[in-house]
């Protein structure tokens, strides 16, 4: 029954698209096999930059996220300036659209002409993604830290652990486990947002496809890029779902 329903729904959708008046033009511009083949090598090479940017950004984002979240959960008066910086950072970078962060970093930072600031927009763009996603991930970690019951800290304190040790050995490990599904969700989003580097002329997949389109008046490469992104994100998305379901089963099993 489920299969039948799926076939009918997809069939109807396909018929609507294929019989639409503009379909022949769309087909020629976006679904041309020869253009797909011609553009593929360049697009594939560009896609390597998306993956590289993602792989470099992810560990840095995790690091910043944990640091900022831990700083925000401290209470000591001496650390107030750090807490203030952490709050301003998260508020600022969660508020500014990621595209703007990328544009500002990519075009603004080199204009400062500071020693040691790279001029390669790939690095500047990746840095922008780290800034922007670091703020999101910090909030995810903070929610995880806040979700740990205060009795766990009381227990650690009673055993003589310092606040730092309680955070490191008791709170953070439990918090991290809880936030893995939302974290993976943010990382799926990050994979896609590497496409924003196209706005500062990095020859990643989208920019390469756009370049091809402008020279050849054919946008099939965009579809190729879309397929590549889907192929990259779907496995991670399924893994996230699976992990979330497993955790829910565990929590609901009561004794387990």
């Amino acid at each position, binding site marked *: 029954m489920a299969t039948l329903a799926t076939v009918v729904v997809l069939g109807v959708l396909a018929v609507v698209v294929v019989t639409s008046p503009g379909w022949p033009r769309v087909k020629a511009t976006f679904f041309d096999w020869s253009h797909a083949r011609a553009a593929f090598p360049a697009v594939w090479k560009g896609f390597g930059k998306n993956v590289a940017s993602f792989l470099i950004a992810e560990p840095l984002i995790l690091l910043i996220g944990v640091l900022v979240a831990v700083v925000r959960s401290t209470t000591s008066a001496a650390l107030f300036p750090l807490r203030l910086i952490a709050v301003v950072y998260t508020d600022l970078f969660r508020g500014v659209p990621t595209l703007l962060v990328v544009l500002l970093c990519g075009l603004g930072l080199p204009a400062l002409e500071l020693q040691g600031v790279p001029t390669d927009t790939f690095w500047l763009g990746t840095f922008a993604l780290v800034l922007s996603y670091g703020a999101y991930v910090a909030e995810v970690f903070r929610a995880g830290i806040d979700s740990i019951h205060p009795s*766990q800290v009381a*227990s650690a*304190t*009673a055993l*003589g*652990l310092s606040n730092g040790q309680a955070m490191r050995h008791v709170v953070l490990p439990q918090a991290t486990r809880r936030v893995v599904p939302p974290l993976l969700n943010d990382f799926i989003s990050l994979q896609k947002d590497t496409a924003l580097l196209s706005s500062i002329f990095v020859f990643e997949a989208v920019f390469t496809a756009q370049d091809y389109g402008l020279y050849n008046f054919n946008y099939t490469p965009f579809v190729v890029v879309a397929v590549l992104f889907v192929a990259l994100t779907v496995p991670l998305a399924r893994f996230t779902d699976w992990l979330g379901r497993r955790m829910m089963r565990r929590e609901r099993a009561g004794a387990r």
Partner: protein
Amino acid sequence: MSDTALLRTENVRKTYGDKVVLRDIDLVVQPHDVVCLIGSSGSGKSTLLRCLDLLEDIDDGSIWFEGQEISDPRVDARAVRRRMGVVFQAYNLFPHLSVLENLTLAPRKVHGVDSTAAEARARELLESFGLADKADEHPDRLSGGQQQRVAMARAIATDPALLLLDEVTAALDPELTGEVLEIMRHLAGEGTTMVLATHEMSFARDVATKVCFLHDGAILEQGTPAEIFESPREERTRQFLRRVLPT
């Protein structure tokens, strides 16, 4: 202080806003004492224990432990807590660590014991608490009674001078209460100094060296189990005992 008391409180007072939760608490605990705090819920038993471990600040009075005034704000609270063990009503085991790791965390990170020695000591304790086969399990696989026994083992793994127990059987079935009380009798028999808040009157009667009846934040009456249970001086104590003792 030159006397032999392990712990002494003088006029301890604790308030939450306008509410006075502890008043004029004078308590002396000698080495090897088993002091039972009894009284209705909300009488201040748990708060008193939390104040003794410096988990709560007191508003007035003083607490002396091992000859040092620990209520002095300049005292390093961590150094004091290293010498005390606490067991909570809800066990508060660390769910992400195995039973063995629960026991070795404080010895390794706080007391600087190397992990081989810490593990050996932990296994020895688990053995004597009848939990040798649970060392590598995670706490959520254990029954409530087993979890509470692990919590006891964790509290004494650091060889504290004083053990504070906060209604450790209150969350357990009568059936499981027995196995935890058994451990407490065992520890008392070994000479462990304990202060415990409890509703287990028969335990207090059999094992305590001193019983304190708390009412409305004050120790209304204290004495040997015989004095408190057989001939209570205060009418409030009599009322309380009538309610909790089987007739």
